[in-house]
């Protein structure tokens, strides 16, 4: 299964924030959109970082002022995926490199974000589909 078939049912929505906005605003956006991470886009729309709920928890633990800009907290080396990446490679990389959200770029354009939750759901659907197919063949017989 490829990233494209997961993104196809997510409406190609990208939730973003600019680097100058506050961490507090980021928490509000995460809550409003019910997601775990936001891509950080500069004024030109270029991807400059990613900020996740884990980053925010770290900030709170360190007693950081949540009015500070997102740029002070975000991860800058963002691993970016493409539509034809396959599910198992992405899951493995997320496990190895310990991140849970993957922005997806197509021809230089940000077209969505895949989360570990999306991958688990997709893998579950894949297994259910295969089991369904096999059960049908075994029980219907000829």
């Amino acid at each position, binding site marked *: 299964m490829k990233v494209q078939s997961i993104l196809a049912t997510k*409406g190609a929505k990208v939730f973003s924030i600019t680097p100058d906005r506050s961490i507090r605003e980021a928490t509000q956006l995460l809550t409003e959109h019910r997601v775990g991470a936001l891509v950080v886009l500069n004024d030109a729309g270029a991807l400059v970082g990613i900020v996740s709920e884990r980053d925010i928890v770290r900030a709170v633990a360190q007693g950081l002022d949540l009015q500070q800009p997102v740029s002070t907290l975000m991860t800058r080396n963002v691993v970016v995926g493409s539509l034809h990446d396959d599910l*198992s*490679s992405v899951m*493995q990389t997320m496990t190895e490199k310990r991140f849970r959200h993957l922005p997806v770029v197509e021809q230089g354009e940000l077209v969505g974000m895949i989360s570990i939750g999306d991958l688990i759901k997709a893998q579950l659907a894949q297994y259910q589909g295969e089991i369904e197919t096999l059960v*049908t063949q075994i029980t219907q017989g000829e």
Partner: protein
Amino acid sequence: MTQPGTASHPLRVAIIGSGPAAFYAAEHLFKQPDLVVEVDMFDRLPTPFGLVRGGVAPDHPKIKTVTKAFDAIAAHPRFRFFGYVEFGRHLTLDDLKARYHQILYATGAQTDRRMGIPGEDLAGSHPATEFVAWYNGHPDYRHHVFDLSQERAAVVGVGNVAIDVARILVRTPEELLATDIAEHALEALRHSRIKEVYLLGRRGPAQAAFTNPEVKEVGEMAGAEVVVRPDEVQLDPLSQAALESSQDRTLHKKVELLQGYALRKPEGKEKKLHIRFLVSPVELIGDDQGRVVKMRLVRNVLVASETGTLNAQATDQFEELEVGLVFRSVGYRGVALPGVPFHDRWGVILNEKGRVLDPDTKQPLAGQYTSGWIKRGPSGVIGTNKPDSVETVTSMLEDLARGAHLQPGDPDPQHLEALVRERQPLYVTYADWKRLDEMEIQRGRAVGRPRLKFTAIDEMLAALGKAVPTP
């Protein structure tokens, strides 16, 4: 207004398409306790089942047994099938909005993805999807001509469709006779002069999409043997590492099967099925009559991306393969429906969990849903459409509970039937289809075959005693 879904006010759902996604959606709707729902399913063909009838290979009858499950769903008293009724032609979106609370698009993927290389449109170069439709008796492809007098054919791609095409091309007439392959295809293949078929994979054996049963099956054919190049089935270090850390036993087995072919002694069978890896066509070259005579291939190496995906990267090494028949099999592609927003690059209806989205606002369009390949793209097996359709139906039920559905001015099912009769008097019911089904089996029995398919719509209508209006 009361929420639809009761005996006095049933929920009316229109489903466009009648393949697995459509049937699984109907099934999930009917499964809901305390919901009274009426499902009308439309297909532009007189026969239902989409690619289960038109795409699954004729020598894979077990895969088609899923239609028995569909029969059970169709037997529901509040299910109706309207075959030979085309959305956008006989019934418009406005017609449906006036008569149903919810509309579900499950039209699948009818066309092919192109390779995007020069010479792709030379005579002798075809989409695999058309060849498959042709040998499965799809009425739209009945008169297609494929030059089977060539000795060599190439299939670009290493998915299940590609291996199906290759396998059908090298099956003996006796093997094909035992299947439900369309009569015209059986005849054409009987006279085929094809001796060698090449399957061409862009990446390596660990990345090939064809599945283990198909890989095993090609090693057990009466008149053909598999040929692989030892160096091409040997895994590169990256693939080897990925395979080991993935602990995917099915993938291990697939690679083992392919490597096993390199160790087999030649059996001297008449036909050869070559499986090539790490090659991509860059050009199809034709003669002065515009017919393909060879293809130029580039050799690839695998390179890891940031996400761990192993991608093909072209080297500067090329080779030429002389071949007179080429089938591209690099994916199916969805077709836009009139009046329904379509994501052209992805070939799908833009949606979120099956709710069709307005392309500008990205907000759901009331009462419109999608499931199956037109929703997520052409991937997965038949059963994959079940969780997919369940997700869409869940969205439909959530919206129903919130009152977010269409408000049909005339939801009377008798009126809908009268409208269909007016627009398409030759429409085919499920009972009609079951008669066609039985006739195909009887016709087959008479010639010692499991089924003899009708391959022309006129034939089907005549067999049903429906008068075709004279022009």
